[in-house]
């Protein structure tokens, strides 16, 4: 989590360049992209023209008032630009730290997919997909790719911030290598998988830098709403001129028709400038917040979708439990002595480098201290495969195996042995306790069971409970048998589980949920997860995952931490909530602004309307000015909120709505009354 963001990225040092940016953004081409702010922008130019006209015709006092309003209109534009610029600057700071890893590297291109093939030096940027390169100790990996030969330890801290080196090897689920990372030892032959400039890091840089982001559907819907509101208020203020004209010339025969300056000020106050000005910043900030969690989303849409998720499909291992099961007991069967079982289990695991294997050896040593520390010469290692679902060692005369009970049973019966009757009982008991039974066999004899215990992560249960109150179901996916799965599911507090899951069952389950109208998120890393990752509404792939899985997912977690999905959901929700809360606040503000400007505009025509001046503002000119100043100042006041996001609490929708209605609805109603009155008081000070 130590993403290399400059320490000052969130502080004041970004403000100065962002201020310059916001001046630059005053170019009409930039302003026109935001319809609400464009109205303010046009209004500012219009008032500027009025000032010039009034000065030219010698009406200096009128020009002074208009100039003051105009100044604040320009500031309103600048503040909105500043919000966007600050968000972009934060993104750029992050991109810059990424780009530092992207310096020009040389690559060793191979003529054939063998590490000893003829090699030539080329620029890393020239590599095309499908080309084969050799990377040796000390080299920076020039492009994304897939290891096809060799095994190496790789320092991926440039991308993930994680300093411990990771193993990358050909075949299996750890074959993907990422551009910008460094090989520490050994070598890899890698097939390039990405186009030049489209590597993983390039995509990340592009995501945070690009200002021409595609708008998300939700943003578009909100945008329509804001544009329509703006249009209506345009008509409200335009027709108000006619109404005022009638009031002065036909109805009251006194006072003055509302001035254009006041009309423009009223328009700018009424249209939703607060949310309109902050909307782009909110979107960018959402992506940046993900980046801070070391997650790269391929689109902003994916983040929003994360907020909508109803079902989380979580792999048991790594997400719900600590990755490794540990051996906790030996259960010999029949004539087998505990020592024999321990010894054989230990022997068969000696060459097993997995944490499980190591834990078996460790436990075996406790009961058989004399256990050899290395396999005798001539022993053949039988690796675990998905088909056989067992592993072991072939000694001179003996075949030692350990594995899932049904696999070992098949193996024993195939070898002519008998399956001890009491075995099933033991297995059942272990599984019922939420542990994993691993059966050990010596040739055709089943010796007994090693009990592997899963350890549920601390705090995960509370987390799932929070999700439940938010209306999100958690489903544990595991290859374990239903009994084991049920026990762990109960211990972890998930809503449902999928036992003996194969990639197809995962996919089928996702489809079933989606058919019922649910939105599904899942994590995965293996190639066989790819279809499910693609099918899920939110697919989070581990950075350590295969290239296929990365392509299929719409988010990649650089820390390879499956628990991250939970944070992503919260970020997605927070993004929507920030938009909704600020929209509500913005619209609710209008009431106070009406009460400031309407009496100011009409008290000369109908003095009785002075009763509407409930804030007791000092003069009509001050009232209008105070409203427009408030309208402008509220934008920079809310920039931190827009960038940080509204505080999110995992709770039910009703509670959340009630809370946000109180804060942003009622607050939006009341706050401007206070703010405008305060500004009016300040204005009267001199």
């Amino acid at each position, binding site marked *: 989590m130590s993403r290399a963001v400059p320490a000052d990225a969130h502080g004041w040092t970004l403000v100065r360049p962002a201020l310059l940016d916001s001046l630059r953004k005053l170019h009409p081409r930039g302003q026109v992209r935001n319809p609400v702010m464009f109205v303010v922008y046009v209004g500012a130019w219009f008032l500027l023209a009025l000032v010039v006209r009034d000065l030219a015709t010698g009406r200096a006092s009128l020009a002074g008032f208009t100039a003051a309003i105009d100044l604040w209109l320009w500031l309103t534009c600048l503040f909105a630009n500043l919000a966007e610029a600050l968000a972009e600057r934060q993104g750029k700071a992050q991109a810059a730290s990424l780009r530092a890893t992207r310096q020009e590297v040389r690559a060793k291109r191979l003529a054939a997919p063998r590490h000893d093939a003829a090699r030539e030096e080329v620029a890393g940027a020239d590599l095309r997909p499908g080309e084969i390169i050799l990377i040796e100790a000390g080299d920076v990996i020039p492009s994304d790719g897939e290891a096809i030969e060799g095994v190496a330890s790789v320092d991926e801290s440039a991308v993930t911030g994680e300093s411990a080196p990771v193993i990358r090897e050909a075949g299996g689920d750890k074959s993907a290598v990422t551009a910008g990372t460094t090989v520490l030892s050994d070598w890899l032959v890698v097939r390039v998988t990405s186009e030049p400039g489209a590597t993983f890091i390039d995509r990340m840089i592009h995501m945070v830098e690009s200002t021409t982001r595609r708008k998300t*559907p*939700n943003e578009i*819907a*909100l945008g*329509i*709403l804001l544009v*329509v*509101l703006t*249009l*209506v*208020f345009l*008509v*409200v203020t*335009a*027709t*108000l001129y*006619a*109404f005022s*004209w*009638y*009031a002065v010339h*036909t*109805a*009251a025969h006194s006072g003055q028709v509302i001035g254009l300056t006041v009309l423009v000020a009223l328009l700018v106050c009424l249209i939703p400038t607060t949310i309109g000005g902050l909307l782009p910043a909110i979107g960018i900030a959402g992506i940046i917040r993900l980046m801070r969690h070391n997650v790269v989303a391929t689109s902003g849409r994916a983040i929003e979708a994360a*907020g*909508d998720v*109803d079902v989380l499909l979580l792999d048991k291992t790594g997400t719900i439990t600590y990755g490794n099961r540990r051996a906790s007991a030996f259960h010999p069967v029949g004539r087998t002595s505990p020592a024999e079982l321990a010894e054989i289990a230990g022997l068969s695991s000696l060459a097993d480098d997995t944490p499980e294997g190591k834990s078996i050896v460790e436990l075996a040593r406790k009961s058989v201290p004399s256990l050899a520390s290395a396999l005798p010469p001539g022993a053949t290692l039988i690796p675990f495969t998905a088909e056989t679902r067992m592993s072991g060692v072939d000694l001179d005369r003996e075949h030692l195996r350990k594995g899932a009970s049904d696999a070992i049973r098949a193996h024993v019966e195939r070898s002519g042995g008998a399956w001890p009757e009491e075995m099933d009982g033991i297995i059942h008991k272990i599984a019922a306790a939420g542990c994993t039974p691993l059966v050990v066999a010596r040739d055709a004899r089943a010796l007994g069971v090693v009990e592997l215990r899963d350890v549920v992560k601390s705090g995960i249960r509370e987390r799932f409970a929070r999700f439940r109150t*938010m*209306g*999100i*179901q958690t489903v544990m996916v595991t290859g374990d048998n239903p009994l084991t799965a049920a026990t762990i599911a109960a211990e972890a507090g998930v809503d449902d589980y999928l036992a003996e899951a194969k990639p197809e069952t995962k996919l089928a389950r996702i489809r079933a949920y989606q058919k*019922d*109208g*649910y939105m599904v998120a899942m994590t995965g890393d293996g190639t066989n997860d790819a279809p499910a990752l693609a099918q899920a509404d939110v697919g989070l792939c581990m950075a350590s995952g295969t290239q296929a899985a990365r392509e299929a997912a719409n988010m990649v977690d650089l820390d390879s931490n499956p628990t991250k999905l939970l944070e992503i959901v919260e970020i*997605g*929700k927070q*993004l*929507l*909530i920030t938009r*909704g*809360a600020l*929209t*509500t606040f913005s*619209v609710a503000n*209008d009431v106070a602004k*009406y009460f400031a400007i*309407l009496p100011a505009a*009409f008290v000369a025509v109908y*003095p*009785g*309307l002075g009763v509407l001046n409930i804030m007791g503002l000092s003069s009509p000119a001050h009232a209008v000015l105070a409203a427009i100043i408030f309208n402008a100042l509220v934008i920079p006041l809310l920039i931190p909120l827009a960038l940080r996001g509204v505080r999110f609490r995992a709770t*039910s*929708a*009703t509670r*959340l*709505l009630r809370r*946000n*209605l109180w804060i*942003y*609805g009622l607050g939006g109603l009341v706050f401007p009354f206070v703010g405008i009155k305060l500004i009016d008081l300040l204005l009267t000070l001199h």
Partner: protein
Amino acid sequence: MTTALFLLFSILALTFLLALPLGLYAARVFAGERVWTSPLLAPLERAVYRLAGVDPANEMDWKKYATSLLLFNFAGFLFLYLILRLQPLLPLDPLHLGAVPPGSAFNTAVSFVTNTNWQDYAGETTLGPLAQMLGLTVQNFLSAAVGVTLLLPLVRGFVRHETDRLGNYWVDLTRTVLYILLPLSLVFALVLVAQGVPDTLTALVRAHLVFPFHEGAHLVRHQAIALGPVASQEAIKILGNNGGGFFNVNSAHPFENPTALTNALETVAMLLLPATLLVAFARLARAPGTAVALVIATLLFFIPLALLSAHEELSPNPRIAVLSVAQHPSPRLAGGGNLVGVDDRIGAVGCALFATAATATSTGAANCAYDSMMPLAGGVNLFLMQLGEVVFGGIGTGLASLLAFAVFAVFLGGLMVGRTPEFLGKKIETFEMKMVSLSILVMPLVVLVGTAVAVLSPAGRASVGNPGPHGFSEILYALTSPGNNNGSAFGGLDAATRFYNILTGVAMLLGRYWVYLPLLAMAGSLARKRTVPVGAGTLPTHTLTFVVLLAGSILLIGALNFLPALVLGPGADQALLMTRAAHAALVRRAAP
């Protein structure tokens, strides 16, 4: 004020007491099920389909449905226009009232087809029994049923999923008229007749004057009293939220609304069908909780506004008060308060509550001179209409508008709970927001731009009957009422000019079709979506929080647009009244 409270809550209680069984009945009618009236009406229904060549099993998509609706309305418009223009050539015109002028005929035809019933003419001196019965009464039934056909596809859009079928237009129309409007009107007409409302083909009776008088050289001995098929038209006028009176003075006329009882019953009848549809909605959408929330939101506006209107009408007019004229509430003064333009049998409270019901629903009937109400009471009328037919509203259209606002509220609320908004199990996305925005925000545009055009043009100002801000209120009212298909008139404004005929005619058309066709399109899009299951993360729409959100959205998005206009109309009117009264009091005190 006790009377007002008692009357208001009795009216509401009776309304919902009747609406409950009626709503459950209506839900079955709309679902095409058999009901207890079927043995009598089903053969009639089948005959109508056979005659019209309609296959009732053939359901339509939203475009076909909308096209049928528009074609039907256009045909109705032509038919009515021709009847009005050709009145001298048609039978049953005993008084030889002549052809209705083209501007007025256009305006009236649009008005009755759109369920507005804005009238620029005086009924008894313009239309004979044929035009009243075949022209207006027929449209009173049909335009009310058309309102229902605007709602039903929308409800089906929420309920159905992954389909483009929204029902058969002709079936919805026929069943609404046959099973709901006709029987109800029949019963109500009989009640009215029992209370003394005439229903006859006789157009006039002559009464001998007790005191003959001279007008110029002419001695007037007789009074001609206009009669006609009043009760039958009055029943559907009120029940169907039409509001177009048989007589010029509408429900203030003793033959339309003879007693205090009919006054109360007519107030109930105005609210009855909109309330019935809320109940039917609960059943059809299987969302009783949401329906209750909608009812509460409705009453949250209706009750305070009705009480405000009654309070204003009961308060002594300060300018009369300084003249030491008694205005206190007492039976001798017919309840007291502001009795300008109010008949004794109705009283200030009866006027205020009737006016509130008439402008909350799209009825627009009047039992007193709305022009003479106190500024803020008149302002309540304006405000209720400007809310956009959401407080009860028109039959069908009211609930449709309320649902549009609910979609809007859910969008904001959904964002605030961090989830793509859903309403009644349907995701609210870009297209829905477009259509809802169109529907909600077109009405303010029509009313505001129309009013601006009227106040800026000499023809618009020439019709104004009163000086000062009250004149502005009259113009604002003359656009607000047609723009919301209400049809009530403030009076004081001469609307029978070519200028207002065209302006209000256009406002009625836009207010009807521009507002509801987008909702039909939204229904089409909603029906195609799959239904999202409800979970703890879904924003619930049956809670008090949602009611607050909905009411807030209606106020902030719907009503805020009218604040400047309301301030310059009733607001300034009231302010002027207070300053002048204070001034007069000061002068009197200064005098020895």
